[in-house]
């Protein structure tokens, strides 16, 4: 059964700089892929191409076999690929409920959609639905961003450093939530993060990027043991 998401030879050049140099991988529904690599290795640019933020210089992205790249972010969301951002981006003046209503309204009803209360409860935000997003704590804001992405009913969810600024207990809760999203909504999730305690237990497979290309792919255990990865990135455990 072909993978839900198929990425073939993605390349992205900004002028002379090649940020992503021929990345390919496949992702099954319900699977969680960890994406790690030193800063500037092309993680965020790769996410950008999947989510339609940038147009790939070369390569293809297929969702259920149909091309889903290079047609703008709003079309990517419509086909089912939603993302969050490295820096927190919310509608400061709006309440979370208004944001969720907008996001939910943007796609033709897909089954398994989460209601506002469920999405908020899933991320531990219940009770904060009617306060302006600007007034939430920074951790709550990052969770709110994920709630917004979930409200679009995604089949592929791209999380860009979701656990930054969170202590272990909050990160653990987030990991559990992501696990439930993958399982219950049968969504494929790609998580980019530097917090290994958060990422390693969560990810089914891990891909390591270096200088825009895939250095290694495997289960968290294999990656932790791989010399090349240790040399370039993890350092002594």
């Amino acid at each position, binding site marked *: 059964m072909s993978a839900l998401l198929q990425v073939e030879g993605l390349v992205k050049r900004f002028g002379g700089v090649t940020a992503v140099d021929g990345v390919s991988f496949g992702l099954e529904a319900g699977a969680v892929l960890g994406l790690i690599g030193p800063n500037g290795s092309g993680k965020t*640019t790769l996410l*950008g191409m999947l989510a339609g933020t940038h147009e790939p210089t070369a390569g293809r992205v297929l969702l259920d076999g149909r091309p889903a790249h290079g047609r703008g972010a709003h079309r990517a969301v419509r086909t089912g690929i939603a993302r969050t951002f490295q820096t927190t981006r919310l509608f400061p003046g709006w309440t979370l409920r208004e944001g969720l209503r907008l996001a939910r309204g943007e796609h033709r009803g897909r089954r398994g959609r989460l209601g506002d209360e469920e999405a908020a409860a899933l991320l531990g935000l219940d009770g904060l639905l009617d306060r302006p997003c600007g007034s939430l704590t920074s951790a709550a804001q990052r969770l709110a961003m994920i709630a917004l992405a979930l409200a679009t009913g995604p089949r592929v969810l791209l999380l860009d450093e979701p656990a930054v600024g969170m202590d272990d207990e909050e990160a653990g809760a987030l990991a559990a939530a992501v696990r439930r999203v993958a399982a219950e909504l049968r969504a494929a999730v790609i998580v980019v993060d530097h917090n290994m305690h958060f990422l390693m237990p969560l990810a089914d497979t891990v891909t390591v990027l270096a200088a825009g290309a895939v250095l290694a792919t495997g289960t968290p255990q294999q990656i932790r043991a791989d010399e090349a990865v240790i040399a370039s990135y993890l350092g002594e455990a």
Partner: protein
Amino acid sequence: MSQVLVNGLFLGCLFAVVAVGLTLVYGVMEVPNFAHAGVIVLAAYATWAAGDAGAPFALAALAGIACGAVVSVLTEVLAYRWVVDKPAASPAVALGLLLILQNTALRGYGGAGRSLDTPYDTVLFRIGPVTLPGVKVALVLLAVLSLAALHLLLSRTSLGRAMRAVAQDREAAAMLGVPIRRQYTLAFLIAGLLGGVAAIAYAPTFQVSPYMADDVLLSAFVVVVLGGLGSVRGAVTGALVLGVAESLGSAYVSSAYQSAFGFLLLVLVLVRWPSGLRSTDARRVA
């Protein structure tokens, strides 16, 4: 044909002087300085008033340039400074300032055009089929001199380097201890001086009136977009391209729609590159 190209060169130099003033201000503060037209008008009236009061042309010209600088700095100190962190409000403030400056000239001197006399009014150069009126040659000289001086200032002096740093990245420059607020005032001072030069170069070719700078401002903004907001060299090349385009268009298609050709160029650029040729505003999302 050569006469048309020469006319294009004159227009190009005029657009360059105005556009560079706009680009500097945009580079440093991301403000579309519509009020620059008001600065040019008031500078022209100051020159006319000084001349009318009997001052020799050179002195009157200096008075005009000084007035341009003062008015331009005032617009920054009184209004633009408070909108630096609210980019959405800057077009509104710029338009409000333009209304004030243009109508101050209207209130002070009335709507009828006045002529700005210069010692080189009747001077005439003739090279082959091409005739070069003195006033237009002066326009080119003034433009070249002022742009060369600006280039030296930007590249040689520490002042210029600090300004280019602020243009690159405001926050980074602030972190490095560059006195941001002084850079804003400096950018507007230079823009004001250039506005004064544009006034004394342009007014003699036509007449001094509150609305003399409207078309020039619009064309200059096309140049700023062509050259990429914030780049001085881009503005100068863009100005010459637009000057020739408008002159050719008005000579061979229809003189009534001269500034429409500038608009056509703007549309072509914006359709292909919605954020300008060499956009400096980094893509906010990446």
